[in-house]
Structures are given as C-alpha cells and as structure tokens.
C-alpha cells in the first residue's frame, strides 16, 4: 500500500505543477498588471479608467444576453423535436448539429460576410428583383445573429442530452395522471431539462460576451464589445495594464453571472457539461 501511494503522488506531480504555473499564476499576473502601471508601481488608475468603458460593458452584456435568449428559444424546441425522433435519426441529427462546431468559426463568419455584405449574395439576389441593397453588416442585429449562429450548437447539445435521458415512463405516468401535452411540457419536461438549459446558457453566454471577431467582422468595426477593447489595448496599443484590468473585470462579471445562474437553478453541480 505504501508503494501505491508513492506512485499516486508521482503521477499527479506534472499536472499539479503545470496547473499551478499555467492556470493559477497567470490569473495572479492578470491581477498584478491590473493594479500596476507600466513601471510596475501600484496604482488604481487602470480600474478607475474602466468607467470609460461603461457603455461598452453594458452593450456587450445586452448583446450577449439577447443572443443567449434567442439561442435558447430556438434550441429548446429543436432539442425537443430531436429527442422525439427514432434513435437512429437522433444520432444523425446530432452529428449534423456537431459538424459546424468542428469547422473553424472564423471561416463560417467569413462566409456569412460574403452572404450579408453590401455587394454580397443576399443583396445581389435582391438587386435581381429590383430591391435596393440593404445594409445588413455593421448592425447590432448582424452581431447578435453571428453570436446565435456560432454558439447555438452549444445550446442544443446539452439540452438534447438531458431531454433524451428523460425516462419515457415518467411521461406516460404524467399522461396517466391526466396531463395534457401542454402541462406535460411545463410540469415534467421543462423542470427535468433545466440542468441542460443552465449549461447551455453558460456555454452560449460566456463566449458571446467575450467575443471580438464576430463584432469585428459582422459589426464591421462599428460595434465595439469588451473583447474588442481588450484586443485593441493588448495587440494594437501594447497597453497590458489596461487590457489586464478589462480582462479582470470580464472574469469577475462571468463568475458572478455563473454564480447567479446556479442560484437560479438551485444546483451545486460544478461541472458545466451534462
């Protein structure tokens, strides 16, 4: 037994070291940069300056909340229809939902640009029937659409995965006890699928609120989100301190909203994946 515990300790050592250096320390470094000036002296200026970004934070949250809700409203019935199909059909439908996730989101976003552009595919079709070109890109709707499009599979899959595990006999029992299809949905399926909804919401909200290329490409640079500002500070201006302060606040924001979600869902499960 002594022997075994020694082996156990050795086997975990690389990961414990790795996680300490490359997961925990980087977060401390973000905090360090957020509270220092370029010379390394302590300052609160970076945090104070964040008030300049109030609107951007608010807009990022509004955009991603709207995108998350739209994704939920579309994904829920989708997952429901999927879970009612024959097992073989379900498998194929799931593969078809997963496939775009395996493609580069960048290339899909480029493809949407080609479809929505001023001289893109939609507008050239409209021109053929004599409709003046529409400005589809560079609008809030385009950015929200991009978020929904890119992340909706992450909403569908967890909801579907929970729904497909609902025991059919539970549904039969509800029917036997006099539930109509509406009450079956609200009183049985909805509560049972809540864990999937919760992880779907987090898996859409987190990447949406922090995206920068969707807003850059589909927002045509007219719409700035938190991700864009971080990207500019770090990559264009080399202002690591401001970028770190923004990242820190983004992280806190996400931790808070995850905690809020858990409170709502009333669940203590740490795992995002169902």
């Amino acid at each position, binding site marked *: 037994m002594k022997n075994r515990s020694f082996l*156990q300790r050795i086997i*975990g050592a690389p990961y414990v070291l790795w996680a300490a250096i490359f*997961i925990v320390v980087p977060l401390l470094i973000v905090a360090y940069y957020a509270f220092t000036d370029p010379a390394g002296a302590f300052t609160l200026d970076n945090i104070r300056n964040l008030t300049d970004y109030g609107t951007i934070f608010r807009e990022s949250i509004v955009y991603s909340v709207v995108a998350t809700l739209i994704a939920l409203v579309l994904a829920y019935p989708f997952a429901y229809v999927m879970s009612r199909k024959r097992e073989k059909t379900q498998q194929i439908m799931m593969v078809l939902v997963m496939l775009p996730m395996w493609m580069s989101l960048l290339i*899909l976003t480029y493809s949407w640009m080609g*479809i929505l552009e001023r001289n893109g595919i939609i507008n050239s079709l409209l021109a053929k029937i004599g409709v003046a070109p529409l400005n589809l890109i560079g609008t809030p709707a385009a950015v929200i659409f991009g978020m929904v499009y890119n992340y909706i599979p992450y909403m569908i899959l967890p909801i579907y995965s929970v729904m497909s595990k609902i025991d059919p006999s539970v549904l039969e029992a509800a029917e036997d006890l006099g539930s109509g299809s509406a009450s079956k949905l609200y009183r049985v399926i909805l509560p049972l699928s809540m864990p999937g909804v919760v992880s779907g919401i987090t898996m859409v909200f987190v990447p949406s609120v922090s995206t920068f290329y969707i807003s850059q490409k589909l927002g045509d640079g007219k719409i700035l989100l938190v991700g864009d500002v971080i990207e500019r500070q770090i990559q264009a201006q080399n202002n690591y301190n401001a970028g770190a302060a923004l990242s820190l606040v983004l992280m806190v924001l996400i931790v808070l909203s995850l905690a809020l979600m858990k409170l709502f869902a009333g669940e203590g499960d740490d795992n995002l994946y169902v």
Partner: protein
Amino acid sequence: MKKAIGNIFVGIMYFILYLPLLIMVFFSFNSGRSTSVFKGFSFKWYAELFTNSSDIGIPVRNTLILATLSAVIATVIGTAAAVYIYYVKNKAWKNTLNTVTNIPMMNPDIVTGVSLMLLFVFVGRLMGALNSLNFFTLLIAHITFNIPYVILNVLPKLNQTDPHLSEAAQDLGSTPTQAFFRVVLPSIMSGVTSGLMMAFTLSLDDFVISYYTTGTDFQTLPLYVFNMVKKPVKPNIYALYSIIFLLVLAVLLFTNISGMKENRKDKK
C-alpha cells in the same frame, strides 16, 4: 400537424446552420477570385492547394505540428492527472484540483489567452528578453487548455472501473505500476482516445488563445485566416476548408456508426 410544424422548424434551422458551409463549398469552385460573385466552375483553387506556390502550406503544416504535439503531451499529463485525482482521498484537495481544472473551461478564451500572454511577457521581461512569445509559448498555451478536456474524458471512465480490479491484480503479484498499465489503462482507454481526439481538434480550431500567445514567426491556419481581413478572402481557403469539411464529416459518420454498432452489441 404538430409534427409537421416541428419538422419544418428543424429543417429551417438546419438550412441556416449549413448555409455558410454550402456557400463555402460552392465558391471554392469559383473560377474568379471573389467569394461572393460566381464567374464559372473550376477546380483551380483545389489544384493550387497542392502546388508549392500555395501560401497555405506553411500554416497548415504548423497547425498540424502544434495540434499533434499539444494533444499528445496533454493526453499524457491529463491521463496521469485523472488517475491522480481519482485516487485523491482528501476532499478539500480534490475539490481544489477540480476547481482549478474547470478554470480554463469556464474562463472565456480571451481571458485565458491574455492571462497566459501576460505570464510569458512578465517572465520574458524578468529574463531581459524583448520578444517573449514564440512557438513554445503557443505550445504551452495549447497544452494548458487541452489538459482539462482530457481529464474530463478520462475521469468518468475511471469512475466506471471496478476499484477491486487493480487490487486483484496486485494480489496476484503484479506491482502497482504493472497493475496500472495492464488493468487500469486498458479499461479507461476509450476515454483516453476520445480525450486525445478532442484535444487535437480543439487545438486545430483554436484561434483566440493562439492569437495572444504566438510569436510572429509561427502562424497557424486560424491565425492565417484571421489575418486575411485586409485583403478579401481568396477561394483557395474555401477549397481547403471544403476538404476539411469532408474529412470531418467522414470521421463523424464513421465514429457514430461504429458507436451505434457497439451500442447494439451492448444491448444484446
């Protein structure tokens, strides 16, 4: 009636989901340079992919090197870590490990990328280096975000294994190391392979974290695609991704069909 509405809804959703992919495949056959005006049918962008003049060759090669290395290293460290976490008795320590493992999965990519970049820059400055980002920082970043997914795939398999198996092997005279390699590892192998596959594809696809942690001398395919902002996208990149699309489709169909067969066997 209700069923029909459901099917129409699902059909429309799939159409939108696949529209950009259809457009991508369609314009990969464009004889012109545009990705929104179709001139005529041609294979020329596909042909160009396989010539030496192709500018995509190096990013593709870099992406494959990075994904292979990071996936293999992450799988080794991650599998060992999962075994370690599985055997940890101390509740508080186990919780800490699980929480830390969850951090890269919960944090937005941009925060993971920025935090790692700041670490590399910080250490680089301490050592007096002007440019601290390069292939190795990128590799470290990829290993870091891949390990949690390997653990996520391996840990449930470990929970399914019978703890007495390894003890039985040791009672029969194998050393703990032999027991691990001969008994435990084979029973968690499916989790290890799916972890490896997941790590490989995550690494192939990653743009955001790479964007912050790579140096100027090592460009991966997603970075190459992102940098094409200024000049419009050429159909050759669509041709490349159409091939990738076919490959992914084949792999997904294959693994699912074999998975379905396995399921059926299990039921019998």
